[in-house]
C-alpha cells in the first residue's frame, strides 16, 4: 500500500496530526493512505506560502513562465504514473491519458501568459494634470485554493497555474474523493524546480478545513471550485473578515477550452496606480 505525504514548503511530510484516511481504487484491491491534514498543517502551509511570496512575486515574469513550462515537461515525464492514478480514480485508460495531456496543455497555456497579461491589461492613464500615471497588475499575495472535487488532475492544474503564474503563492486542498494525483503533482513541481512554498498541497476533508482556508487572516484570496451553495456562503462570509478576493469556479469540465483564459489570472491581481509629476 502506498503512503502519500503532504507537500509543504517544498518537502513531503506526514500530517502533524498523525491522522490518515484510506483511498480505495474504483476497481481491484489497490489502496493508498493519505494524510488527513489538520488546521495546523494549513497554518504551516500559509507560513511557507507567505515566506515564498516575496521572491516569487518579484521574479521575472518570463522566469515564472519558464518554470511553468518546466512543470509541464516534468508532468509529461510522469504520464504513466499519473495515468495509473487517474484510472484508480475511475477513469478509463483513454480518458486518463486525455486528462494528463489536457493538463500538460493547460500548463503550457498559462506559461505563455506569464509575460503577456501585464501588457494586455495594464494601462498608461492620460490624466489631465502634469503627471505620468500608469496602472500595473500585481499579485494579491497568498491564495488558498479549494480544488475541484472532479477532474483531479486537470482541475487541480487549472486552479493552480493562473494563480502562481501571476506571482501569487498558494495553499491547495486537493479533492477529498480523488486525491491521488495531487501529491504526485507536488513531486512534479518539486522536480521541475518550482521554489519551495510557492505551491503547498494538502489532502484531507473540505468539510473540516473550509473554515480555516477561508478565514485565515494572512490569506489574501480564495479560489473556490465547486457548486455547493452552503460552502460558497461560508467562503464569502469568511472572506469578508479581511476583505479577501474571492473567485468562484463552478466549471465541472476543466478540460474544456473555455475553462482557460487570462481572466483567471486577473482574479488574483491588484491594480496598482502610480503617479509621478512631469516637469513643466
Amino acid at each position, binding site marked *: 500500500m502506498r503512503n502519500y505525504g503532504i507537500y509543504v514548503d517544498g518537502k513531503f511530510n506526514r500530517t502533524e496530526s498523525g491522522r490518515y484516511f484510506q483511498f480505495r481504487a474504483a476497481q481491484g484491491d489497490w489502496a493508498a493512505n493519505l494524510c488527513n491534514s489538520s488546521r495546523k498543517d494549513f497554518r504551516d502551509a500559509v507560513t511557507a506560502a507567505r515566506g515564498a511570496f516575496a521572491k516569487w512575486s518579484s521574479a521575472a515574469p518570463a522566469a515564472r513562465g519558464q518554470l511553468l513550462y518546466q512543470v509541464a515537461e516534468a508532468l509529461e515525464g510522469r504520464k504513466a504514473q499519473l495515468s495509473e492514478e487517474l484510472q484508480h480514480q475511475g477513469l478509463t485508460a483513454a480518458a486518463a491519458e486525455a486528462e494528463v495531456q489536457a493538463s500538460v496543455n493547460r500548463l503550457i497555456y498559462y506559461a505563455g501568459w506569464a509575460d503577456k497579461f501585464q501588457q494586455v491589461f495594464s494601462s498608461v492613464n492620460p490624466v489631465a494634470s502634469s503627471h505620468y500615471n500608469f*496602472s500595473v497588475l500585481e499579485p494579491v499575495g497568498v491564495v488558498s485554493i479549494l480544488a475541484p472535487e472532479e477532474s483531479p488532475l486537470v482541475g487541480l492544474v487549472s486552479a493552480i497555474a493562473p494563480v502562481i503564474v501571476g506571482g501569487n503563492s498558494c495553499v491547495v486542498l486537493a479533492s477529498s474523493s480523488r486525491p491521488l494525483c495531487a501529491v504526485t503533482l507536488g513531486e512534479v513541481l518539486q522536480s521541475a524546480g518550482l521554489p519551495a512554498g510557492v505551491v503547498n498541497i494538502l489532502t484531507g476533508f473540505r468539510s473540516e478545513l473550509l473554515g480555516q482556508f477561508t478565514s485565515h487572516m494572512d490569506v489574501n484570496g480564495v479560489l473556490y471550485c465547486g457548486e455547493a451553495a452552503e460552502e*460558497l*456562503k461560508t467562503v464569502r462570509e469568511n*472572506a*469578508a473578515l479581511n476583505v479577501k478576493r474571492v473567485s468562484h469556479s463552478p466549471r465541472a469540465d476543466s478540460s474544456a477550452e473555455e475553462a482557460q483564459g487570462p481572466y483567471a489570472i486577473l482574479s488574483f491581481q491588484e*491594480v496598482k496606480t502610480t*503617479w509621478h509629476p512631469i516637469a513643466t
Partner: protein
Amino acid sequence: MKATTKITAKAAVKPASKLTNKKPARPERCLDFKTVWNYKASPESAESAKLEKRYELFIDGKFVPPSDGAYFANFNPATEAKLCEVAEGSPADVDRAVKSARAAFEGVWAKLPAHERGKCLFRLARLIQERTSELAVTETLDTGKPIRESRAFELPLAANQFFYYAGWADKLGFAFPGRRPRPIGVVAGVISWNFPLLMAARKLAPALAAGNTVVLKPSKTAPLAALKLARLAEEAGFPPGVVNVVTGGKATGEALVAHEGVALVSFAGATETGKAIGKALAGTARRCALELGGKNAYLIFEDSAIDQAVDGIVDGVFLNQGPVLSASSRLYVQESIAKVVVRKLRDRLETLNVGDPLDKNTDVGALPTRELLQRVQAHVKAGLAEGVTSYQADQQVPKKGFFHAPVLFTDVAQSHRLTQEEVFGPVLAIQTFRTAEEAIEKANNTPSGMASGVWTDKGSRIFSIARQLKTGVVWANAYNKYDPTSPAGGCKESGLGRDGGLHGLASYVELN
C-alpha cells in the same frame, strides 16, 4: 524632536478659542505669521446654494415624499444651523426605488442605443459644469469643507468623471479583450459623506455608462449633492428610473443592501461597514465593490525636495480636514531630515487658516458631525495619553461648529493607536526611519492598503519602493491627486475593485 511644544490632554480638547494668543514656546527660530499674514474675510454667499426648505426622495424620475412621512434635519457643520429637511426613506421607499430601477433597466435603458446612453452622461457633465457655483457652495454648506476644495477639487473631478465614462458607453467592446461585457442590472450606490458629489459621480458614471441603472443612497450627514445631482440627471434627459436617490440613515442603507433586486452594491465608506456588506451578500448571487478606509503612509527620503514634500503632506493629511479614504495620516521621515521637516510642517500649520468654510482663504474647514469631532478629540487625547509629543498650531477656531485645528504628533511608535487606527481628522503621526527597508516594512505594517506616498529625488528608488508598497495607489513626489482616467482603490482591507479609468469599469459589467 524635543523642540516641539508639549500640550496636555486637557489643552488639546479645550475649545480652541482658549488657545488663542498663547504662542507655543519654541526655542528655535520661527516666523511670526500672525502679524503679517492677515487675510480679509471673503466669504461666498450661502445663497448661491439655492437650497430648498425640504428635499424629497427621487424615484422613477419624480421627487416623491417618503412613504411614512419622516424627515430628518440637515445641518451646516460650520455653524450648527439647520439647512433644510430631508426625507428619511423607509424600506418601502427603497423597494419602490429598486423596482423602478429594475423596470428602467429592463425597459428603456437597456434598449437605448449605447451612444444615446453616452449622450445622457455627456449632458450631465455639462450641467454639473454650469452649476459649479451652486454645487460647490452646497457641498461646503453640507460637509463643512473649504469652498476652495469644493470648487477646485471636487467639482471638476465630478464633472470629468461623467465626461470620461460617457465616452465608454459605446466602446465597451474594446475594454475587455476576448469578452463581451454586459450590464449587471440595478446598482446600489451607498456612499460616504466626505466627498458626496464626487463619490456619487464615481459610482454613477461607470455604472450608467455600462448600461446599469442606479439607486443612490447618500450619507445622512451630507445628502444634498446627490439630490441636486438627481435634479440634473432629470434635466440631462435620463429616462425615469435610471437614476434614483433614496436618502436616509443606516436602516435605509441596510434595506437597500439587503434588497434582492440589487445586483451590485458599490460602497464607499468605513471598513467595518464594508465588511458587513460583504458578509450580508454571502449566500446570494449579488456582488459588492468596496472603497474602504486606510491608515496610509507617506515616506520622505533625505534627498527629497523638502518644501514640496511638506506641501504634499499638507495636501495628504489636511485635505478635507482629514476625512479622506486616502489621507496620509502616518508620516515616515528619514532620520537625517526629520528635524527640518517637522519644523517646516509646524510653520505650515501656523499658516493654515482654520475657519469659515465658505471663505475662499480657508484651508481647513469643519468636520461634518459632532460625533466625528468628538472621535477626533478622543483620538488626540488617547495619543497624548500614550506619551507622545504633540504640536497644535496657535489657531483661532470658531466657537460654533465642529472645528478641529490640525495636530502633529512626533515620537510616535508603531504600536501606538495613532499609527494603527484611522482617525479621519486633521491628525498626523510622525515617525522616523533609517533605511528604505525599514520604511517599507513600517508602511506596510497595517491591514489596510489604500494609498501611499513616497518622496525622493532618485528615480530608481521610486520604482523600487512603489513596487513594494502594498497599496492600490502610490503617489510619488505628489499626494492626493485624482483623475477620472486613473484607477484608484484599495489592496488588502481597503477595498475590492477600482474606481476610475478602464479598470473602474470592471465592477459594473458581467463578463462570463
